[in-house]
């Protein structure tokens, strides 16, 4: 019994994911295509910007400006990409993402503004700026050289998956194997102690928000390439979705714990759950309520898991 409980609590997220998958597969006529849709198309988008949120959460903050960073950087870059300056455009997009992330980081470290309000204020400013910049215009019909980034596939697997995996691998390496990664975790766990041990915590936080900005721009760019249109309202729900995925994945808001690996599971649970509700023909009106319940339940399970681990140690 003890063993079963322990196993169930340890792997509750995987079990939850498989349960959702079983339900949705049993009611659809083409479960393979459905799973392919989720894994190859829907999940990679959400994953990339959710990684940005996760990194910010590990430092003990959060990034509510992801969506507007994605919109601003892609709209600015679209002016270049539409003129077939693809590489310069992409570079500009990522640079702008990094620059806006830098501003977030400086507000948090140098001006000592709480991350919640700093990124929320920035979200307003950047969203306003992109509305002003576009003035109601949209940029669409990009060349196929650009669209292939998100539309193409290699060996039957969508490019999106390769990109998401590559980003995941880099982030996993940086945050688990390098000094910088360790510093990020120690900054999140206890900023005062890590400062005393000689970590330049300000630098760590600034760099993390820059990475978060770049990831937001990257996912924005992929959306633009996939949907063939750059517009000012892109990503209005990025922030809250990324936060939900991060929390479901089990990265704690106290900071210093969790990681992008957890978020992969969080995103998959979230994406598959929404898909499951859709294929079960549940009314849209119920989705918000169900979504909230899942966040509560997964948080409670996470807590039960930790309590159980403590109980075993005693």
């Amino acid at each position: 019994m003890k063993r079963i409980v322990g196993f169930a609590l340890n792997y509750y997220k995987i079990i939850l994911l498989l349960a959702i998958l079983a339900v949705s597969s049993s009611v659809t006529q083409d479960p393979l295509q459905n799973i392919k849709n989720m894994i190859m198309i829907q999940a990679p988008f959400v994953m990339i910007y959710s990684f940005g949120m996760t990194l910010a959460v590990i430092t003990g903050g959060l990034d509510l400006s992801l969506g507007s960073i994605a919109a601003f950087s892609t709209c600015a870059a679209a002016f270049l990409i539409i003129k077939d300056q693809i590489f310069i455009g992409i570079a500009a997009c990522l640079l702008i993402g990094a620059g806006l992330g830098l501003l977030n980081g400086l507000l948090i470290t140098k001006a000592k503004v709480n991350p919640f309000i700093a990124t929320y204020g920035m979200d307003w400013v950047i969203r306003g700026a992109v509305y002003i910049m576009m003035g109601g215009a949209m940029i669409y019909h990009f060349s196929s050289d650009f669209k292939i980034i998100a539309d193409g596939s290699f060996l039957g697997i969508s490019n999106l998956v390769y990109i998401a995996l590559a980003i995941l691998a880099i982030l996993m390496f940086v945050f688990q194997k390098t000094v910088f990664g360790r510093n990020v975790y120690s900054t999140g766990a206890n900023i005062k102690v890590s400062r005393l041990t000689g970590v330049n915590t300000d630098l760590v936080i600034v760099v993390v928000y820059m990475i978060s900005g770049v990831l937001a721009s990257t996912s924005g760019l992929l959306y633009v390439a996939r949907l063939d249109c750059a517009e000012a309202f892109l990503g209005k729900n990025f922030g809250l979705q990324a936060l939900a995925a991060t929390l479901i994945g089990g990265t704690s808001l106290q900071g210093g714990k969790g990681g992008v690996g957890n978020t992969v599971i969080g995103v998959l649970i979230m994406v598959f759950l929404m898909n499951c509700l859709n294929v079960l023909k549940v009314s849209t009106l119920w989705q918000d309520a169900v979504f909230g319940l899942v966040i509560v339940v997964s948080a409670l399970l996470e807590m039960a898991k930790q309590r159980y681990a403590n109980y075993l140690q005693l």
Partner: protein
Amino acid sequence: MKSNKYSRYREITGLLAGVAVLFVFMSFAAEGFFGWYNLHNVLKDLLILMVVASGMTLVILLGKIDMSAGSVMSLASIVTTLLLSYGINIVFALLGGLLAGAIIGLLNGYLVGVLNLNHFVATFATMSIAKGLALVACNGDIISSDSDVLLFIGTGKIFGLFFIVWFSAILLIIMFFLSTKTKFGYKIYSIGGSEQVARLSGIKTANVYLVTYVIAGVLAAVGGIFMAGKANSGNATIGDGYEFSVIATVLIGGTPFEGGKGGLLGTLIGAMFLAILKNGLSMLGFTPAWQYALIGLAILIAIVGDVSINERRKAEEKRRVGL
């Protein structure tokens, strides 16, 4: 104790000066701003924001947050108008709306105070749940109310002042009293200062969390009912994103997320700042795009200014003590 209070007032004088400058500027620059009709309306909207923000202030003083405030507003507006549409007496309809807020508040308090879930996660989830319940209850529709009483709550006047102004003023006086003069208020400040110390000194923290979140839920419901009264109808989207404005108000007012510091007076000034800014920018004729950018910028400037004043004061105190 006295010197402590003195410094708290000094903390908000900077912001108050900012509000005064903003007010004078808007009075000269924005056509139609400085007039009883407009200022009376600004006061009304400011107080709706303030009522919700006063509940949020208590929560943030505890070192917690309540992300569900906006959704609770939507839920309360739907519950009240829905009950009215079933022909239920207005008193019970209003109580129903308040009860909805209390229940969500109780759920928040239980998750945070008793089950020890992370406060952000718990209220982030109840935000979705409350919004979802509102949508399910109204079946995605706008509920019209034919109640003249509800309309009076939102738009009626007593002795030349809006009902909302009178009612909010009374509520705020009670809240001010509660937070500064009662044992309960003292407990909130001490838990926000240090939960462990508070617990060691014999405060039942779980109860304080429960009561505070219920108060915050009920006050958000009051805000939602005000909104429903202004429109004389219930709409499940009315509170979307409102929690962010409320949290910004509290932070601008000088109550930081760490808890234990700040108070309602600061929040009131924060609400004045945001309400005057929004009304003024709109009266000046800025498009929504520019308003987005300028409001965001103003929030950041207000917070950065507040932080730097506090930093300087801290440094000054350190020097005086000789550290």
